[in-house]
């Protein structure tokens, strides 16, 4: 009798221990997943947001990725390289005439180009997945006077994606005088975002 009782107590304890162990293992797996998720989502201290917007960022000095060099054909048929702009601050806008938010931001870019080009800031478009006819018509309509290179195959975009997370058009990058990417606006650019980035990058040798 005593033996039967103790055996039952033992069996219950073993069963409970198994359940607890299994539950603990499951909880451990879940914890790892949650931690990994949280870790992957955590930010990078070398990047600061601009103008209260999470889509506009400034890269601090020393953490600016080098802009990949490219040589491409402009919409008007001439050759152009990014290195031609070395020593100048360049606003690099990835766009397409088919892209609705690009059309929405085009007047802003035209106005900013008119404001900053006299002070030595260059503007350059990268026309993604587009055709010359449509792109030229776009530039005409929106009074875009700065040049754009054709990136029909997205090859230039691909090179830049290795440096900054370009998830589509529009994306606007600000390249500093040394050819490094100093700021970025992912998505539609606003006047105040780009003004704030340019103020930082053009200041005292930026």
């Amino acid at each position, binding site marked *: 009798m005593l033996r039967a009782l103790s055996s*039952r107590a*033992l*069996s*219950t304890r*073993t*069963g*409970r221990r*198994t*359940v607890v*162990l*299994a*539950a603990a*293992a*499951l909880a451990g*797996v879940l914890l790892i997943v949650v931690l*990994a*998720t949280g870790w*992957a989502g955590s930010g990078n201290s070398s990047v600061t947001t601009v103008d209260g917007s999470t889509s506009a960022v400034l890269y601090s000095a020393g953490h600016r990725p080098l802009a990949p060099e490219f040589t491409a054909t402009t919409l008007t048929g001439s050759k152009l390289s990014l290195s031609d702009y070395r020593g100048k601050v360049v606003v690099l806008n*990835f766009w397409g*005439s*088919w*892209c*609705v*938010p690009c*059309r*929405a931001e085009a007047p802003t870019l035209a106005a900013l180009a008119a404001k900053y080009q006299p002070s030595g800031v260059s503007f350059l478009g990268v026309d*993604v*997945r587009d*055709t*010359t*006819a*449509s792109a030229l*018509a*776009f530039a*005409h*309509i929106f009074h875009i006077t700065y040049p754009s290179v054709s990136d*029909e*195959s*997205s*090859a230039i*975009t*691909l*090179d830049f*994606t*290795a440096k900054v*997370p*370009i*998830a*589509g*058009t529009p*994306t606007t990058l600000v390249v500093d005088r040394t050819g490094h990417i100093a700021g970025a606006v992912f998505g539609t650019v606003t006047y105040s975002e780009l003004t704030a980035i340019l103020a930082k990058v053009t200041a005292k040798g930026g």
Partner: protein
Amino acid sequence: MTDVRAPETDPFDPAAEREDQPRPGRSSPGGAFGLADWLKWGWRQLTSMRIALILLFLLALASVPGSMLPQQGNNPSGVQQYYASHPALAPWLDRLGLFDVFAAPWFAAIYLLLFASLVGCVVPRTIRLAGSARTLPPRAPRHLTRLPRSAEYVTTLPPRDAVDVAARVLSGRGFRLRRPDDTDQGWVSAEKGYLREAGNLLFHLALLGVLVSVALGGLFGYKANRLLVQGQSFADTVSALDEFHPGRFVTAASLGPFTMTLNRFDARYITSGQQRGQPAAFDARVTYTERPGGPARTFDLDVNRPLSVDGAKVYLIGHGYAPVFTVTDARGQVVYNQPTPFVAGTSGNFLSQGVVKVPDAQPEQLGFTGVFVPTAVDVGGTLESVFPAADNPVVSLIAYAGNLGMDSGPTQSVYQLDTSGMRRLTDSPQVLQPGQTLKLPGGQGTITFTGYVPWVSLAITHDPGQLPALICGIAALGGLLLSFMIRRRRVFVRARANPAAQAGSTVQVGGLARTDASGGFEAEFATLAAELRSAHEQAAPARPAPQQAAPDRHEGE
């Protein structure tokens, strides 16, 4: 999930120390069935073999609609077609997540429950098996002749030596031994076949590995689609993809840097007989580079011949026609000049629909809805396509002017024209043959149908879980085979001083297989018993003949 076969405890083995404790009753005697009991009961149900099998079956069942219905992930245009042909049913299917089965909450629920079930089974089982692998065989039962297999003979060796010899033989045969603390007691227990448990464990762990691999693929893999017109190129970057479904941990930077150009696409069709119009062969010749600036290679993509590039696989999943249009606006300026992909509808023979949007025409934006007919035949005033190849291509266009709605607001589909802000310029659809131009009324401009080029639809997938899943699958199979083929069996030897002889002893050998599904233990035991006996005979010191004539009722020479 517990053992697939016989119960762990052995009804034939009176001496077996029960490793698997009998589970406590469902309701505690005299006590209420509390929350803790319910939780415990639920957990036990979840981790039971039956529930795991049901979940596995459900998982298989849940994948069925994924192969029967077009899926958002790999065939978005198929989903659109389904919407067009089943306008009442499609929204309901969508609500149930049947157009994106693998992302549906109920699919995740089955998957997670199965995962929990397996973890909840395998982890305690691993602990128990690890413990059982360390435990020694049970003590030898008193009466070995009651075991399923037994033999008895006499030897001239004293009991202690006889057991020593038996232990040596059994150990040489790969048995794990147990001797009494007091070696005078004259018995040895031996057990073999622990690999069966190891196989069982491997099977469970590998199943777990398959699930983890699939999860790995979901977290670190991606699926993407790209429509590529002949002559065009694209790079594997987010903005160059039409559809992009990244895993949880996939960022824009984790995409492979390959680039690809569609040099040409050929589709051949059966031209006669019952199967006229059915595809005979596809061939998509592409040039690709693994990374920018790398060497360019060519490859012929076919429906079942994907291209592996840079960790990703590129599949040919569809094709169609892209009529080329040139549009001039009221100023006479060319404002549109490109192939425009049209998508085949359900009516067959590649009767395709598409849209031309000219947002930068002046003074007004222009839009066209069109139908491309590869082999057109006029049937009572309507155009029908009688063959999928472009033998007599025509387009039929309706022109609109006004506001396309593209200057603000949400992103638009390139296959749909929002005519709410536009007015129709032409009353009836205008039919154009290659080279023909339609003059828009009111001097709004012109549209020319200059020709057509084919396009292909590519699915680009990256699944890092594929190889681990394969390895785990093979391991699971191996484990299952091991656990089916290997018997766990015990052999006991007892030697008692033979009362008939002064120095000899009676040796009893007993054996049982805990699971003998494949049979064969009987033969193995007979061999072993014979081997033990000859070992005893060899080890026995030479004796005078009379003493060897001890009665041997079992062997009876």
